[in-house]
């Protein structure tokens, strides 16, 4: 699913044509719209939510959806729509920063390993990546939480660490095929050093790969954050988070299924949107792969 063909890096198309094709890709348009809805909801929640998410209204607890509360209320009488809007902030922030951590550390490591292919440095970087890969993000989160206590920041670190080898491997394999191209040889003949070639010629040409993988890791980050806060290792009360809303709804699921339904749908639709967007972007950047994965 996350496998990208590094050996088929396309030339950069004319930007106008790319936009035209983007708008005709159903996956990309639907995915981008779904993602946009949740990003806008998160942004809007800073300015306005239908109700205060910290305001308890016990008289109105566990109400099914109505005109007053479109998605119903929870066991403290809080408006579920408002909580989902605020919860989107945490989910998106955790996933975005975790992707950022993965890229900031992973991409330079991958470039370095590719530039020094076959050296001891390359071997050390790749073995270290394998080792980090052996720690599922949940296990990293458990280790960090056991040491520093649960928080959204620790969830970010756990998911971010897991992302580093993903980007390092992808960058390395993408860069390795580029190093064999003629224009890189020309740059070397012109006297450019490995570091300069990596930054000036290799990095711009693996950007497409990084954007597609970034979208996929973004969606995996949303899922991982939801899982962590479900088991109490993510954002702590009173900050609303989708995963914890689900955990709290669990004991009431037999008589208040709406409490479990909507936060779960929010996660599902966000992740679905990001995945569709990732697929659409991959087709856009590399039409040869369309319909294959």
């Amino acid at each position, binding site marked *: 699913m996350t496998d990208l063909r590094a050996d088929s890096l396309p030339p950069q198309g004319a930007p106008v044509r790319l936009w035209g094709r983007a708008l005709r890709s159903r996956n990309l348009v639907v995915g981008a719209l779904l993602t946009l809805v949740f990003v806008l909801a998160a942004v809007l929640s800073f300015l306005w939510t239908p109700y205060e998410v910290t305001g308890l209204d016990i008289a109105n607890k566990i109400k099914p959806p109505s005109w007053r509360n479109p998605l119903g209320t929870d066991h403290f009488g809080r408006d579920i729509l408002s909580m989902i809007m605020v919860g989107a902030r945490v989910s998106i922030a955790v996933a975005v920063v975790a992707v950022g951590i993965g890229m900031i550390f992973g991409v330079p490591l991958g470039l370095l390993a590719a530039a020094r292919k076959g050296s001891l440095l390359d071997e050390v970087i790749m*073995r270290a990546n394998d080792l980090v890969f052996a720690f*599922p993000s949940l296990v990293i989160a*458990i280790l960090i*939480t*056991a040491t520093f206590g649960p928080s959204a920041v620790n969830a970010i670190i756990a998911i971010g660490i897991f992302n580093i080898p993903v980007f390092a491997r992808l960058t390395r394999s993408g860069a390795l095929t580029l190093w064999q191209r003629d224009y890189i040889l020309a740059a070397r003949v012109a006297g450019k050093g490995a570091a300069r070639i990596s930054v000036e010629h290799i990095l711009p040409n693996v950007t497409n790969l990084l954007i597609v993988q970034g979208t996929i890791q973004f969606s995996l980050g949303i899922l991982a954050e939801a899982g962590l806060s479900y*088991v109490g290792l993510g954002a702590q009360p009173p900050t609303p988070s989708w995963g914890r809303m689900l955990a709290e709804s669990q004991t009431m699921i037999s008589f208040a299924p709406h409490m479990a339904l909507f936060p*779960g749908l929010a996660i*599902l639709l966000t992740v679905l949107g990001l995945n569709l967007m990732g697929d659409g972007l991959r087709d856009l950047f590399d039409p040869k792969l369309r319909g294959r994965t």
Partner: protein
Amino acid sequence: MLRYTLTRLLSLAISLAVASVVIFLAIEILPGDPAAFMLGVNAQEDTLAALRDQLGLNGTLWERYVSWVGGMLTGDFGTSYTYRTPVAGMIADRLWISLPLAIYALLLSTLIAFPAGIWAASRRGSAADVGVMGTTQLGVAIPNFWFAMLLVVVFAINLQWFSAGGFPGWDEGFWLSIKSLTLPAIALALPQASILARVMRSALLDTLSEDFVRTARAKGLSRRQALWRHALRNALIPVLTIIGLQFSFLLAGGIIIENVFYLPGLGRLIFQAISARDMIVVESVVMLLVFAVILVNFLVEIAYALVDPRLRHRA
């Protein structure tokens, strides 16, 4: 092959050694003293010292590391701070739930993914293909613990076919235990089955466009015969790799699903241990999970080399 296996074994040993150091240090930089935590603030200094000694908390960092690793190698995982029972026994008990759950989920995932992937690939572009791909798109996006909760609502609360949680114990009968693991296994299997079906489909599509399949068609085999006799076997290599990797994900992923169904497996154990600051248990369970992942990766690499001789010479 022997040389390749030995190199991989050495790499396995190094990975395990480094992983154990990382886990040990992560837990050891923990502020706070388990002995003080257990005895409370009013404990006498000599009682604290005695308990620390009993728990093996004295000595330098290096001595404690060596005794922890040495203990694990001989099957002695130490004594739980809170339960006062050997950690090895506690883990073994819990493993009897977590391991069957992971195997059950892997079986389900394979049983769903193979037919779905083959069906979609053999009818590429048809309604069946679009349907399978759409379903797997949903399956990948659904959080498995939420799917688990939906299964509880439908099959435990409304239809009452299964219980909503808990585990009777293997002594109470094999089928009863399997039944209580069924909903958790389905919840765990769905996202993995979706990924696997997609891998199966794209691997088959790749091999279907290879020359040897065209040759098979040219000698008169139908598309279906070519798929079953020639393409499928070659497409299995990437699929088997993914199955191997999924097993370790299923074992770790079970930690969350066990919480949904109140199953007393490794997941419940580790969360109880974290809240009770029972670090020796946390250390050992994490090490066990990481060991499982590294071991499975090793086995996959060996199996891969057995199937594809070219890989043996790369190491």
